[in-house]
């Protein structure tokens, strides 16, 4: 077998699908790529906007866990000062 390979030298969350809560109304679900002085680099990004009509954040996360990440953006660089928390999607709810 090819084995259970992590990515040496990468951030611990590299390749992991995370929920990034921000100081504003937006919450992102995306694959964590890396983090540097510019901020958090995310791939395949789905967005929940607390200020917009539609599902609550909990409803959004429940749906995402059941049906997967509905990515609307391929890439997002989120400035560090906007990041309130980063948690694994698998550990949410």
């Amino acid at each position, binding site marked *: 077998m090819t084995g*259970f390979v992590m990515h040496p030298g990468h951030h611990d969350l590299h390749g992991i699908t995370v929920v990034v809560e921000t100081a504003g109304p937006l919450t992102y679900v995306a694959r964590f790529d890396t983090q540097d002085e510019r901020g958090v680099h995310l791939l395949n990004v789905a967005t929940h906007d607390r200020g917009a009509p539609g599902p609550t954040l909990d409803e959004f996360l429940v749906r995402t866990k059941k049906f*997967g990440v509905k990515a609307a953006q391929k890439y997002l660089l989120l400035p560090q000062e906007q990041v309130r928390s980063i948690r694994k999607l698998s550990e949410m709810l």
Partner: protein
Amino acid sequence: MPYHEIQVRPMREELTRLGVKELRTVADVDAVFANASGTQLVFVNSVCGCAAGGARPALAMALAASRARPDEMYSVFAGQDLDATARARSYFADYEPSSPSIAFLRDGEVQHFIHRYMIEGRHPQQLAADIIAALEGLTEPTPANG
């Protein structure tokens, strides 16, 4: 961009030697799923080392540890066999694409889905337990399937 075939062949063979049939073309996929009946496992393979590198061994562990089997097991290779993968995903289109992932279907309907996020960062033994649970749920008799 697809990897060179030499690089991915071992990843294909890691599944095919378990009895998983690869679907490489749209025609292959349609031949299987256009009128699907019974139970199927569909493994969306990937080159991703941190996720697929655990998922393939997890399937092997699950099949070794459990007698529960779907009627058929198939794989498509995301990022490699692009058209076949897109077509396969069209048969479980309610579920967002991710790879690796595993769909468990009965009579063409998804009964359980293991997304990439449920695979990432987990040891193959942990994932094998999830696969066994899904296979047992898929193959246990129900009022509808006797």
